[in-house]
């Protein structure tokens, strides 16, 4: 069991986490637990508890949230939001939490694999483009169906797509995320208690 220190608590945590103002009403949470009761991830991973995550954010525990493995389990299915009596968008909260975690140096390994595809999409204007062998398969499939071998995107559109990622500093943001600079995750919930990983 890891010890918690005063420095692990921050009364303004929620305001800092909702940086893009996409949740807005977290303080209305009734702690009713419907989100957790309906959550498919909680059903297979009892340590995962959306209600407890909200409670800890409102209480201001940075260590329990940003350094924790739990926030990376959510598959953003939105079942929590759909059942919530006060329409709290927990999926938006998870997005904000992950940005905040990345900013504090945690969890890069959970986004870097998908970002590889984004770097690739700069050449194609579309995402999830496969490697060489996968590409041959796709081209054969599409040709057999009688459509162009690969979905066409104009060179201008590709250039503009890339320019948007450059001009919004997004490419630079992604380049900075490296798994080898990642801080280890410290905490995980287990049966309502905090334990070391």
């Amino acid at each position, binding site marked *: 069991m890891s010890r918690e220190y005063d420095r692990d608590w921050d009364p303004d945590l929620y305001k800092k986490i909702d940086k*893009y103002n996409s949740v807005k009403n977290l303080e209305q949470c009734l702690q009713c637990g419907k989100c957790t009761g309906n959550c*498919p*991830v909680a*059903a*297979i*991973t009892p340590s995962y508890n959306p209600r407890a995550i909200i409670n800890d954010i409102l209480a201001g525990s940075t260590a329990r949230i940003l350094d924790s493995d739990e926030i*990376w*389990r*959510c*598959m*953003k*299915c*939105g*079942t929590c*939001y*759909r059942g919530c009596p006060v329409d709290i968008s927990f*999926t938006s909260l*998870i*997005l904000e939490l*992950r*940005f905040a975690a990345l900013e504090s140096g945690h969890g890069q*390994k*959970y*986004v870097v*694999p*998908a*970002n590889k*595809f*984004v770097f690739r*999409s700069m050449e194609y*204007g*579309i*995402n*999830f*483009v*496969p490697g060489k062998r996968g590409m041959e398969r*796709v081209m054969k*499939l*599409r040709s*057999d*169906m*009688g*459509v162009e071998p690969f*979905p*066409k*995107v*104009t060179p*201008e*559109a*590709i250039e*503009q*797509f890339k320019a*948007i*990622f450059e*001009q*919004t*500093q*997004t490419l630079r*943001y*992604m380049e900075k995320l490296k798994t080898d600079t990642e801080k280890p995750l410290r905490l995980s919930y287990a049966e309502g208690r905090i334990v070391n990983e």
Partner: protein
Amino acid sequence: MNKTKVLTPQERIGKKPDKLFLFRSCTGSIGYPGTESAVREVLIKLGIDVITDPDQTCCSGAVAGYSGYPPEASLAVTARNFAMVEKKYDADTYCFCNGCFVHISHYMHDLQTDPDKMANANAIINQWGYDYKARNNFYHVQELYYLLLDEIRALVVRPLNGLRVGCHYGCAYLLKKYGIVDDHELPTFHEQIITALGGVPVFYKERRSCCGSGAGRGFTHKESVVHPHLVRKLDSAKEEGVQLMTTVCPGCNMALDAEQPVLAAQGYGPYDIPVIDLAQLIGLAIGVDPKILGFTANTVSLQGVLEQVGLGKGA
């Protein structure tokens, strides 16, 4: 905010469009290219003029939804794609991927309600002669199938002969919760479409649950989240004798179809439940050439399904 939960498709869309812009999806054109062709062929058979344009790029929402990068790029990409549609075609847009739907709806809403975000996005796209004004509407094609249910029923030439179909709604459309064409907890509009095609809709227990791969978990949490979740889902479909599963999202389609042999190798199942897009099934029933529907992309073979609708070997 409009707090109406369920709208009729007539209230949501209005009358049948003469033309529409079809927003292509990455996975629906690469991993399961039959999805894009099926949607297109079905809409053409319904007498709608379908526009696509190679100036459209990826919606860029998927990886932003994985928290891979902050939202600014996606706001500008959304503004660019839809400014292009406004300028060239002035048509409403329909997408066929739940992922595109949720991300684009979200960014459109942000652009339309936050003047700063709109100004920032337009400042970027102005350099290419675009200016997004949010003049047109945006829908998912599943809403249109529901609006045109009677027309689809009348077009059926290859009835499904009692095929037991389990619908997978996916998450992203219904999680809008308000202003959608069916109840988000207990939707039945896909099942109504299956019945119209001559199939038997199966209400399996985990019908409403996720494919498990959302938010990048398919990349990073296969063993801890995706597989145990899929086992629950596919077990419940198998128990009810589902012969075919339909999706309205190429991402879901990939998770539900391609993971089946992996689960079988771990000792689960075997399930052998083919998974296709709802448009592919509608296309099959209304007589689209099966070659165009691209079933060869599927991991789990559709042979049994094709035989049941009267298409023998080699189809």
